[in-house]
């Protein structure tokens, strides 16, 4: 039991990171119907931008600010120079998906090239604090709260702001949004900026877990997909729930009563993903609700 509780706590930590990443991915998918395979590498970019700040002597919470802005700008610039021109030429979603795979390779290996393959970290590891039922490091606790803040903030943005409502409208029916006089390209640009900021932030949280390395985002990406699909693709709220579930499931899979090697825990998450697609392709929250 004790072991299970600890594993659940660990699962919530990694699930929180997945959730922040998944919500960004979901926003882009909902609004643009694009599955962005480069999403993981934007997590990495955020983590390394912050690492650069830390290297210059900034405390992490200050280094995070330019990193988040950088992440937003990176996605915004790509919208201007890549995605928007491609949309205007009538590129299919499948072709956009393939482009995103190329983009992922480029971005990841540029990071490899610039920073090398060495694994780094923001700070030396801290010991776990005993919280009674389970123990977590201070970083773990920051991750959980940091993720919760971002998720609530995104939820409020979607529900309460005009641009958020417009994003949901676009996810619902792009043609009608255009016919209503909504400046679709502007809403899409905002979507990328917000997704970019969220992704960089998610990357920093991922790095806080301990390790910053060029493959970190790519390795997380399939888990993010699993979280998104489990929750119902295109549903931001579903993505949050699905991600936490994926995090917990993969940690619990290593429980000594099950005895799975730790290397295989991601496979368990992937299997859950495939089972969900088989039984309920629309995910847990279905697709009644856009974003």
């Amino acid at each position: 039991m004790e072991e299970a509780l600890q594993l659940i706590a660990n699962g919530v930590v990694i699930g929180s990171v997945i959730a922040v990443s998944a919500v960004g991915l979901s926003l882009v998918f909902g609004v643009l119907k694009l599955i962005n395979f480069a999403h993981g590498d934007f997590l990495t970019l955020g983590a390394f931008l912050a690492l650069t700040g830390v290297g210059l002597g900034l405390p992490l919470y200050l280094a995070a600010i330019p990193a988040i802005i950088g992440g937003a700008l990176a996605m915004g610039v790509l919208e201007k120079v890549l995605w928007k021109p491609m949309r205007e030429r009538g590129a299919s979603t499948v072709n956009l998906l393939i482009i995103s795979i190329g983009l992922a390779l480029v971005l990841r290996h540029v990071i490899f090239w610039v920073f090398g393959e060495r694994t780094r970290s923001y700070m030396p590891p801290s010991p776990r604090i005993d919280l009674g039922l389970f123990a977590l490091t201070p970083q773990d606790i920051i991750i959980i709260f940091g993720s919760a803040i971002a998720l609530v903030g995104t939820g409020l943005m979607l529900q309460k702001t005009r641009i958020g409502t417009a994003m949901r409208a676009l996810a619902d029916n792009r043609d009608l949004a255009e016919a209503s006089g909504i400046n679709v390209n502007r809403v899409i640009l905002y979507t990328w900026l917000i997704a970019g900021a969220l992704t960089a932030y998610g990357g920093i949280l991922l790095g806080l877990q301990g390790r910053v390395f060029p493959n970190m985002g790519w390795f997380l990406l399939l888990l993010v997909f699993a979280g998104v699909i489990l929750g119902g693709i295109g549903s931001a709220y579903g993505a949050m729930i699905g991600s936490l579930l994926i995090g917990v499931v993969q940690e619990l899979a290593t429980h000594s009563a099950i005895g799975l090697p730790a290397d295989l825990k991601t496979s368990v998450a992937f299997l859950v993903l495939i089972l969900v697609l088989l039984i309920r392709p629309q995910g847990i929250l279905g697709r009644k609700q856009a974003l």
Partner: protein
Amino acid sequence: MAERDGLLLEARDLKVGYVPEVNIVNGCDVELRRGELVSIIGPNGAGKSTLIKGLFGLVPVRGGTVRFKGEDVTNAPTYRLVEMGIGYVPQTENVFPSLTVEENLEMGAFLNPKVIKDRYEVIFEWFPMLRDRRGQRAGTMSGGQRQLVALARALMLEPDVLFLDEPSAGLSPSNVDLIFERIRFINSEGVAILMVEQNARRALAMSDRGYVLEMGRNRFSGPGRELLNDPKVVDLYLGGRASGGETAG
């Protein structure tokens, strides 16, 4: 150039299409004056919806001109036309299903959010049913209710012109009555209406003028009642004289 004789909208020799080289609308003329109610009828696939989409900048216009309020707006971006005073209710999928009624209306006024609060009052007076359901998701509403949401959304920016694409399609008879009644009312409030309808008899009977479209061209045009009584129109598009009960009167 300023607007002449209350001529709000004027399309000349319009050519519109989707696939290269195939014009679905192929040389259409349409006029709409202030306060008028004009119907477009014609067989399935005649290009009625395409004509409206061309006028509204949703499908590229390949030939001819569109003027609105005296200004050349051929191929103008849609949001520009919305800004200038056109509202549009598409034939299908004309609400945002996951948004509430209020949010749907808000999206109708995206270009000018300042008017939203005041406009709600007017709209809810015109469509009292929506006031009680302002928090309901549009996707959970019945066809008739959704059509009202769609109409209301298109009216949020106080347009001078409303394009309606088959507003009565798929509705129950009582809802058809309700929708036509509201359309007449909106028109009486001074909004000019250009309406595509399958329900040709009723549409023509309430219209100032009508156009009969076939294969992307004007086949007939004239005052609504005249078209209703024109034997050729009756034979070809109104299913023969026998079934008609609402000629002149």
